[in-house]
Each structure stands twice: as C-alpha cells, then as structure tokens.
C-alpha cells in the first residue's frame, strides 16, 4: 500500500486559514481552489477542518464539501463540530468520505461507536491533538484551545477500541512552526494501536515525510509547507520514491 500525502486545509468558512499552534490565523484564500490545485498536482487525500465549528457549536462547511466533491476526485475527510451521528451522515451525504471527530468523541466516546455502526469504521477518523506533558502527551480539543487532561496514549487506545478506523495525530507543539514533526509521538502511538496513523504537524519538507514513514505513519498531513509553496506534492512523492517508499504516481 502506498504511503499517502495528504493536504490539510484549516477552514474558517469561507476562508482557508493558517495559524501557528492553531492560533493567530491568516487568511490564505479560497479553500476549494487550493484543494483542486492539490488534486491536479497528485495529492492523495484532502482534509478539511472547520476550526471554528466547535467554538460556535455549528457546522457550516457542507457547501465547501459539496463543491469539492464535484471537482476533487480523491478522498476527503471533514472535521469540526461533529457532535451527533446526524452531523456525520449529513457530511457524507454532502460529499465527505470520512469524518473526523475530536471534541465530540472526547466528550462522548460512544459517538465513535454510533457513527461507525452506520458508516463503518473506515469512515471514522479520530483526531487527536497532542501537547507534550512531561514524558508523555495530553489530548487537547477545540483546535488546541481546551485541555482534556487525558493521556494521549490511553485515549488513542480507547478511540481504536470504540471503533475508530484511523487516527489523525496532530502535534500541537510542532503544528504551524515548520520545525519538524514530533517523531516520538508517532512512534509511541504506533506501538499501541493497529489502525493507520496520519501524522500532522511541523512538516518542513520531504525528509520529514521519510522520517514519519520510518516511525510507522501511514500518511502525512501537510498544511503550512504546501500552502506556502515551500514544497510541492511532486517534491514529496519524488523524494519518497527515490528512497524506496511506495507512493501513488
């Protein structure tokens, strides 16, 4: 199976935004245009994260999802403010292939199980925002705004056991900084779960993606590095292929 290069688009509808440590947002443009451009460049998957849905207790990203579903023919994962099962099925009807739960799942892990019962585990991603805490990490929610007090390793196991099909593992400490990923985080979570891990946060370029392959990630989700043009999708794929990693052409 090919290692996946995924573009992560944080959306404060209607804009694509980027921040550092999930704060201090800059508007970057039309998310649908960015997504289509990445598709044309060979991206394997798109993640749309509505970063204010939890704050306002609403989900306003469905129009964007539907638009992209008509011109981006690779899988789309959509997250932000999914509280009830019908939030998830509504997103799938609008064009999402997978839904990403964070706050909703931490508050009520049964949500994972309920959604998986209808959509199947393969459509349920649990997003874990990890912040370093001593020798381990604690899980955050609401896009890095709220503490849960939960240990990431324990929560990752519980999320898997509740029916999650994939983990989107974000390093809060590294996210937006372009200072490299938290390899230890990925390695540690990899050792306790068997479901695929999409690693996110701090990727500077193709070398970081290779390091993530080596610690067991199934995919890398990239934001700042791609949006800024520091590296292209082709840069990542060519480098990985040259180093013996299977990637989709």
């Amino acid at each position: 199976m090919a290692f996946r290069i995924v573009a992560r688009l944080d959306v404060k509808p209607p804009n694509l935004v980027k921040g550092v440590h999930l704060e201090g947002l800059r508007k970057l443009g039309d998310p649908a245009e960015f997504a289509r451009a990445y598709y044309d460049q060979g991206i394997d998957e798109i993640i749309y994260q509505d970063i204010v849905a939890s704050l306002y207790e609403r989900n306003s990203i469905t129009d964007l999802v539907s638009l992209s579903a008509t011109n981006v023919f690779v899988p789309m994962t959509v997250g932000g403010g999914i509280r009830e099962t019908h939030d998830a099925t509504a997103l799938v009807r609008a064009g999402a292939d997978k839904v990403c739960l964070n706050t909703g799942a931490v508050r009520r892990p049964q949500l994972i199980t309920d959604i998986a019962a209808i959509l199947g585990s393969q459509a349920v991603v649990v997003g874990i925002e990890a912040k370093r805490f001593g020798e381990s990490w604690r899980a955050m929610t609401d896009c890095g705004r709220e503490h849960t007090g939960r240990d990431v390793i324990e929560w990752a196991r519980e999320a898997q056991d509740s029916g999650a099909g994939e983990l989107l593992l974000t390093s809060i400490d590294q996210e937006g900084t372009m200072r490299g990923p938290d390899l230890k985080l990925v390695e540690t979570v990899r050792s306790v779960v068997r479901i695929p891990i999409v690693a996110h946060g701090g990727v500077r370029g193709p070398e970081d993606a290779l390091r993530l392959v080596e610690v067991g990630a199934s995919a890398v989700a990239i934001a700042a590095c791609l949006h800024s043009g520091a590296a292209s999708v082709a840069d990542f794929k060519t480098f990985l292929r040259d180093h013996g990693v299977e990637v989709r052409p």
Partner: protein
Amino acid sequence: MRVAVVDYGLCNMFSVLAAIRECGHDPVLDIDGEQIPRAEVAVVPGVAAFGAGMTRLVATGQAAALLRRADAGDGMVGLCLGAQMFLDSSQEAPDTPGLGVARGRVVALDPTLGTVPNQGWTLVRSAGDTPSGFLSDGDPEYYYFSHSFKCLVSPDSTEIATARSGAESILAAYRQENVVGVQFHPERSGAAGLAFLGRLLAAARV
C-alpha cells in the same frame, strides 16, 4: 447513457454523481426504485455498514427493484459496499441477507495479515488469464480502497481483479454476467479512477 444511482441515504452521493458526469454520462438519482428499471446501468454506491445499508435498501423498495433488474439481465454496478450487498451474505451483519444478485459472500479482513481497515491506495491487477475487459487497458493502476470486509465470489465469476492488503489477497473487482462489483472507490481514485469508471459503465451496459 442514462445511469441510475441508487440513493439509500448512506452513500457519498455527491462524489458518485460528479464522477459519472465527468465520464460524460447522465446520472439520475433513484430514491424509491422507480428509476432503476429505466436506466441503462444502475449503480449502487456505498459508504456504510452492510446491515444498515441492506435495511435501508429493503425499506425503500430499491432492493426489490434491483432484484427485478438482475433477473431481467440488465447491467448493474456495485461500488464498495454496493459490491458487497450484491452478494448473498456478510460477516459484518450475519442476520441480514444480501441481495444475492451475485454468488458469493463477504468476510472480514484478517488483522494478522494486514492493517484493518484496509485504507489507502493499492495497486490492482487483473487475475490470471481473464481478459482485462474493463479492468485496465494497460498496466496495473493504483486505486483507493477503504474497507474492513472483502468479497469472496464463486469461481465462475469473470473479469476478476485482485489487490493486496498486507499479506492478504483481496478481490478488487468481479463480474458475473450483468452484475459487476468493485471493492475500491473509482470515484475517489483520481484520473485513473475516472477512466476506470468510464470503461466500467460502458462494459456494464452490455
């Protein structure tokens, strides 16, 4: 070509409709079985669990319409869950029968042989000496898979394609006369997927 897309409330409709339009065809949404007999090809997509999907199909009357269409020998395409529901049964929901329009059953992927769910881009090849037909007009291609269960079909199925999930062999596509099942998501597999979908619809219409 008029293509009926069976909407049972749990599928990724936007993606499937968009992909069929990209192939230059006319998709029509079916919600109650009425469109199923009128189309040249009926497509059953799916992003859901077997039990939930079958329960909905039966409740809407679409299951009955699909059975009639199969009996009439008219072309039908199942994508992912659709391909599974065409078969007789699934381990995912042992108490819920499948449509049985194709002979076979659905079993769980083995977590000791590969990661479950099998999620990602995998190379698909024609199996054995079967003519490639709709499968490929060239080299093996990468397509997107997202599933925890796989199809096992009767040996008289033709145009089989396979892929690997870790150490496990999985059926990527099957054909039994007028019924075609595809385990991966051609509507989500980029340009290669769209090309495949185009060939698939053309082949299923016969």
